[in-house]
């Protein structure tokens, strides 16, 4: 067992999840099973391999250009309006569970 109940509690805390006692036990079991399978990646020597974060820096770009020049098409003028107008405040707040009409409202932040 690689992942312990203590690890699960720590990671749940990082992820802002509460998890019931039963869920925690299930999580220990599932994470160990999945991570056990994932272990097989260690069969590969990747010491000389570059990591790949995404594909769009490798394909569909103008190969004759270098660095950020390749992505010049994705840049735009830095104007306050951006590409489209910002949402009006009341629309931006429409899906919020609690507002005062001007701002999102949340429970007390500082606990004493």
């Amino acid at each position, binding site marked *: 067992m690689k992942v312990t109940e203590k*690890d699960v509690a720590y990671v749940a805390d990082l992820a802002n999840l*509460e998890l019931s006692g039963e869920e925690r036990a299930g999580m220990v079991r599932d994470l160990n099973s999945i*991570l056990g399978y994932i272990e097989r*990646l260690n069969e590969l020597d990747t010491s000389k391999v570059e990591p790949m974060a*995404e594909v769009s820096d490798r394909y569909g770009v103008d190969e004759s250009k270098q660095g950020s020049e390749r992505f010049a098409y994705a840049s735009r003028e830095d104007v306050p309006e951006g*590409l489209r107008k910002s949402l009006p405040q009341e629309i931006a707040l429409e*899906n919020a569970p609690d507002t005062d009409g001007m701002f999102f409202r949340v*429970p007390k932040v500082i606990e004493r």
Partner: protein
Amino acid sequence: MELTQLTIDSARSAVQERKTTALALTEAHYARIQKEDGQIGAFLTLCKERALEQAGRIDRMAAEGKPLSPLGGVPVGIKDVMSTRGVRTTAGSKILGKYVPPYDCTAVARMEAAGAVVLGKTNCDEFAMGSSNENSAFHPVRNPRELSRVPGGSSGGSAAAVAADMAVAALGSDTGGSIRQPASFCGVVGLMPTYGRVSRYGLIAFASSLDHIGPLAKTVKDAAIVLRTIAGRDPMDSTSADVPVPDYVAELEKPVRGLKLGVAKEYFGDGLDDEVRHAVELAIDKLKGLGCQVVPVSLPHTAYAIPTYYLIATAEASSNLARYDGVRYSYRAPGVKSLSEMYRCTRDEGFGAEVKRRIMLGTYALSAGYYDAYYLKAQKVRTLLTRDFEEAFRKVDAIVTPTSPTAAFRLGEKSNDPLAMYLADIYTVTADLAGIPGISIPCGETKEKLPIGLQILGKHFAEATILRVAHAYEQAA
């Protein structure tokens, strides 16, 4: 003319030539949904008002003799991970149960601008995380071919809607196989385009470096029409590629004779069902008969794709799903007294088991002390997997494989074993990691009459090639 059995072209022409109306087409599909969807469960939300308004607009154009756009009057479904202004968009999650987006996803806007009539939002696994559609927070989807079977996932609602004639076509999203695998299970065509080919603006993010929007359709030509409509640079998505969009429909008619098709032994190993193997081998023979040359290729890192995928996808998901905190979107747990209690209780009650499992795995893989061993390691293996394809595509124009190792499995069969469920994506996740396009087309069925899918993978931005091969096979089959 059976209104719910038309292809995109035949539906559009019928409206254009006034043999029917967009309104009649729309009503016929709603009637079909009313009749069939109680037992299938493909739709989560219908947007009749929006659909009828669009249908009316198309009919007025047709009445005035104006030429209709390529999707003029065609009723479609949209996977519920794509934002629709004023229409509830849940991502199959309780946490977005009442969320109504204030803007449209670019792909949806392009579909409507081309005349499509959006019938409603289709069911899916919660946040597109799943391979069976059993992870929907609302209800599962059943396979229209056999109701005891899953439709695949996560775009199970989109696939089932098309398979059951409840929509002419649908949009889905594919992060680890979520368009192609359900297309295969339901016996329809499903296309995942190259990463960056279609804008992700307005797509509820699961794993941003892997998420793709694409069509599910009744024919390869229909998939080509939808792709032509939604593809192309969108300034609202900085990862959408600045690559010209060819006329995918015109390209379908080019000959396939002489094309080199790769067959990789890694996709025909242990775990592949015999009936699926047999059907795919027959399909490859048929393509050979059409003049394609079959060439053995090797994709040696294939066995490492699932572990790589489940580290990268979950790491990105743990970050993307941090935004669901009870402040801005729809659901907040009741009765909470502090901010931290609000976060925890909202997420605890709002997310389902699989989503929590993936957030936990992703958070673990990114946490201090494990980042190098898991996340960075996976990113390096992603390079190796991508190089496998680069090597293979030096020799061949496309690669043919089974879409899924088995036909549709039973509801409940894998739902208690996350790892077994993940392995249902073993032939599809590689393309997501490498960002290459892939299509699944029907290639026969099992003795139990369950559909089998043939997957065709292509080079980056070579959708026209895989569509052409798929079309040739479909015409010959």
